[in-house]
């Protein structure tokens, strides 16, 4: 449980006139449940995209598990053990719930061959069932993904990420658009998942994250405003100001 799984140094990115992420550094130790919070448009998703290779950084460097992954294509980063769930739900809409998760589990098994039926690879179907069970989608395994409720689709999004057996899980607002009870159960789920995998999580709702995070980074207008333990963040005057007034 020692060592950093993720280390970002001086990440910086502008879009035209918008300076979305300004010189942000981040260190995530193995086993952490690190949260990133901040108001709308504060650069949280962009920071994720800089880490995953979706967006090339203007400046800065990303190290995953001791290896430089700056600007590396997402698929390659994913193969190294970094998975991400999406702020805007991204699943395979016309495939069944089971197949959605099975595809991800298959990726982890490296069984990408074409001379044997996919369904006959026992380790993959077992892993799929396991993940469905853990996420609580077993009852919906044969449903078409696009028929699920919004909350269940959010959870399926998470299940796909989890099934790839990542060492670092990036969650972009997993509770977005969920009802209070769905939010509560998802938070509980995230806490449970953290026993097995390091999590870096964006969350909009501060109350949600305070109870479970091991560390919190506060972003504001692309800059790191503060970083520390949850209770420090809660009592920090600048953070309160941002959250109470909406902006500085």
């Amino acid at each position, binding site marked *: 449980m020692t060592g950093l799984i993720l280390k970002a140094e001086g990440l910086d990115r502008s879009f035209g006139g918008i300076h979305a992420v300004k010189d942000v550094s981040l260190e995530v130790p193995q086993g952490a449940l690190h949260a990133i919070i901040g108001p709308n448009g504060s650069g949280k998703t962009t920071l994720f995209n800089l880490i995953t290779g979706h967006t090339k950084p203007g400046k800065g460097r990303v190290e995953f598990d001791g290896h430089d992954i700056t600007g590396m294509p*997402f*698929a390659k980063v994913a193969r190294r053990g970094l998975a991400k769930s999406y702020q805007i739900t*991204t699943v395979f809409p016309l495939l069944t719930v089971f197949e959605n998760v099975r*595809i991800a589990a298959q990726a982890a098994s490296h069984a990408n061959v*074409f001379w044997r039926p*996919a369904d006959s*690879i026992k380790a993959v179907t077992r892993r799929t069932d396991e993940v469905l069970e853990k996420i609580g989608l077993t009852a919906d395994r044969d449903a*078409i993904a696009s028929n699920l409720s919004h909350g269940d689709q959010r959870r399926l999004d998470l299940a*796909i990420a989890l099934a790839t057996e990542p060492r670092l899980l990036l969650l972009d607002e997993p509770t977005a658009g969920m009802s209070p009870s769905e939010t509560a159960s998802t938070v509980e789920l995230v806490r449970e998942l953290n026993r097995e995998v390091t999590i870096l999580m964006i969350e909009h709702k501060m109350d949600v994250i305070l109870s479970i995070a091991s560390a919190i980074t506060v972003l504001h207008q692309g800059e790191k405003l503060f970083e520390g333990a949850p209770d420090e963040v809660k009592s920090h005057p600048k953070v309160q100001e941002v959250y109470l007034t909406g902006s500085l």
Partner: protein
Amino acid sequence: MTDLSPAGAKDAPVTDAAAAVTLARATGSAPARWTWGQIGLLVVLAVVVLFTVPNPSLAIGMLIFGLWAAGLNLLVGYGGLVSFGHALPFAYGGYAAGLVLKNVTTSAWVALFVATVSMALLSALIGAVCLRRTEVYFSMLTLAFAQLGFFIALQWNDVTGGDDGLAGVPVSTLELGFTTLELNGLRDPLTFFLVTAVIVLLTFAALILFTESPMGRVLQAIRESEERARGCGYNTRLVQLVTFIIAGAVAGLAGGLFAMLNNFVGLQPYWLLSGVVLIMVILGGRSSLFGPFLGAVLYLMLESTLSRYTDSWQFFVGAIFVICVLLFPQGLWGLLTTTVPHLLRRTRGAR
């Protein structure tokens, strides 16, 4: 005909996907999967064709076109990659087989092997370029390559025979170890039909196996969300390229068989069929491999029936195609396997 197809093919995926979603919503479950049963269905269809189609070369043509359309559907239906230029590998396969038979050997094995394998290699090059773009831009690139191929075939007189084509492709022979068959489509159509049926069935079964393989499943996932497939760590471009190569090789094989059947390869009809084969796919339905096969059989039946009564049969085929796409965008086979059972269930539920 060829003018009609791009528009129809471009609209269809949208309506088809939408229809599939609506249907999936209505039934709340995945459409019935007929995966392995498709091989059995094809055997049945081949037998039906053998006993009901009076014109033997039409019956053999149905098998050949059916295989070609099924291969194209790997790209269109399973991969979401609509090729507007699938005449290229078919025509190329025809020329390759024709040239081997004329100049090198009359062995069907060698001719078909050369047609299939060299087309696979060529597909790797063409696919590497076309797959740099997606959606309609991909389609346009495939069309551009087919046009390029057409002009090469037209201009390169010494090899392709240009406008006149390659006439007098000799009758091929098939060595089977214990005996040697002569594949003469005119004098002994039954042998030709049976040999073709075996080749087509084995290839079709291999295609089914591919769609159910891990890689084939990834192909379908990429169609649904390439971003997410990348996020799982898949090299999505490579999976699509492999599919492009398989579809190309199958078309090359079909083209080679067609050259052997007609003992002729030329600009007509080979290069004019990109739209036709797409129509076969969409008519039959894109959710399976059997669907396009059925689409090919029906299309050719329609064409041969209508052309007996009227010279403007293309107009009627086009009109029927338009009506079919409007009424059942999921294709004939999609209609039979999803909509009809759904309606039956509803009427049974109402009672």
